[in-house]
């Protein structure tokens, strides 16, 4: 799978005339799990909405070689999969039916679902750890289960780019590790994977690169190895200090 790079310059966007993103410039590279970090209200979700083509923007935003504003909605469905931050399920489709809708961008008006589609759907539910929920209505899932069903839908979509807004915010520790490992694997397959994360230690443990946002601007963008106390302190306006585990892993915490 060949991912697609996002390149953006002078990117501004907002809601009802109020700017949230201000003059952003940078690159999101394929083949990497990029963690989107930063304080609340920093513009992470808005940035992801702009990347997913759901939010009008000013400036330049390219997906691969193409201007994002010229890519049709249908093609965006084939190129970009999105797990939103908050999902309120509407119609009570079963998990299987909902995940199967991930194949929709690849199907025409009269196309029937193929065997290959079905295989992709089953592989997606297995990878997302929702196999045991296949026949459950999506309206009767917990928050964590809903997040994983959304992830499964994106996997069934099989796009080269995946954008995830806090995909582990409702997961237990074991499933948090599984989901983030899966995202790392998907990036290793060559896809462009961007995940907004609040836990900087998860970003350090799983991501390849980070893009830090503050006040609607890109404050830092670098390989994850460069995320240190100094960067975190400046980003969150609070002193951070490192703790070493018995295994020698370093974790960052706000100094009380």
């Amino acid at each position: 799978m060949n991912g697609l790079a996002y390149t953006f310059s002078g990117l501004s966007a907002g809601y009802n005339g109020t700017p949230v993103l201000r003059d952003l410039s940078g690159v999101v590279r394929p083949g990497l799990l990029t963690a989107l970090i930063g304080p609340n209200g920093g513009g992470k979700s808005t940035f992801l909405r702009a990347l997913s083509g759901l939010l009008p923007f000013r400036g330049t935003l390219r997906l691969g070689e193409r201007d994002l504003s010229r890519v049709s909605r249908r093609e965006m469905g084939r190129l970009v999969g999105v797990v939103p931050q908050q999902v309120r399920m509407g119609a009570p489709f079963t998990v299987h039916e909902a995940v199967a809708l991930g194949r929709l961008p690849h199907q025409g008006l009269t196309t029937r679902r193929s065997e290959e589609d079905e295989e992709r759907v089953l592989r997606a539910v297995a990878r997302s750890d929702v196999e045991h929920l296949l026949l459950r209505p999506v309206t009767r899932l917990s928050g964590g289960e809903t997040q994983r069903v959304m992830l499964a839908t994106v996997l069934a979509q099989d796009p080269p780019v995946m954008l995830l807004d806090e995909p582990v915010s409702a997961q237990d520790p074991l499933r948090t590790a599984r989901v983030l490992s899966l995202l790392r694997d998907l990036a290793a397959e060559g896809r462009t994977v961007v995940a907004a994360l609040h836990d900087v230690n998860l970003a350090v443990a799983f991501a390849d690169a980070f893009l830090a946002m503050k006040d609607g601007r890109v404050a830092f963008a670098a390989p994850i190895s460069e995320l240190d106390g100094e960067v975190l302190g400046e980003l969150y306006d609070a002193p951070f200090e490192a703790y070493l585990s018995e295994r020698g892993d370093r974790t960052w915490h706000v100094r009380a």
Partner: protein
Amino acid sequence: MKGTAAIREHERLIHRRALRLALAGLCVLALVVFLRLTRGDWTIAPGRVFELLSPFLNEVERRTPEAIVVRSVRLPRLLAALGTGGLLCVAGVVLQGLLVNPLAEPYTLGIAAGAAFGGALGLMASSLLVGPCAFIGALVALVAVQTVAWRAGGGRERLILAGIIVSAFLSAGVTFLKAIAGERLSAIVLWLMGSFAGASPGAALAVWATSVCTVVPAWLLGRRLDAVSLGEERGALLGVDERRLRGLLLCLVSLGTAATVGSFGIIGFVGLVVPHLLRLAIGPSHRPLLLFAFLGGACLTAIADGAAQSIGELPVGVLTSMIGGPFFCWLLLRRGAE
């Protein structure tokens, strides 16, 4: 694979249920057709009724009073009731899917109120203007609702709120027209109550033509409607141009509603009861739902029309509202409880 087996079993269960439902629906339809064509003020033997319906009936027999009753009164009335019921029910399914709201109906969005206002305005001048004016009224109401919703920030909830506001305004307009209608008041009131009595073959044909124009595109777009009905922006994220889909389907639904309201007055709540019960039986997938909704709505309305006729030609709209109103309340309370 355990998951695959469970899915296959579930799909078989749904197919079996759908097949049983289809058979039951077709049986009810056959019974309704039989009863509505053979029963009436004038007793005509069933065998004779079906002879008279033959397309090869000679010219002399076509002019007999009983042939006129069967071919020009009972058949158009039955076809009008079936087509209108099916169309309104399909309109309900489409709106509920688009707005992710089981309470959505042509009435919730102000489309029916627009058609009623336009039609009443037309009726003030001439009964020939009812149809065209109802259509214009429905379209103007739809544009007004869309504009108000868009100016208020867009979104499905705002669309319904805008529909309620525009409905209230147009209902006041209809009341105003009634107040100044003078001798035309009784015609407006009777028309607004909704009735298939006196349905012409042309009107029945128009409703069926509109039904085809609504059901076929809606069925083709059924999978996209599935994606949209999953929730806010889900359709867009799955490659559906939601704005275009919404624009197209809302226009089709407006056309359908205007065609029925213009010809037969307001027949409310048909698009609410049947889709909800069908979803419980066969699930929320729109392609089968649209077809079953057409069949169910057609049967329900034809039965209601038969009942209305047998109670001294009561307006059918009154009867459907008397059934649908309490059902709407039940649905609202159930939704609140959830």
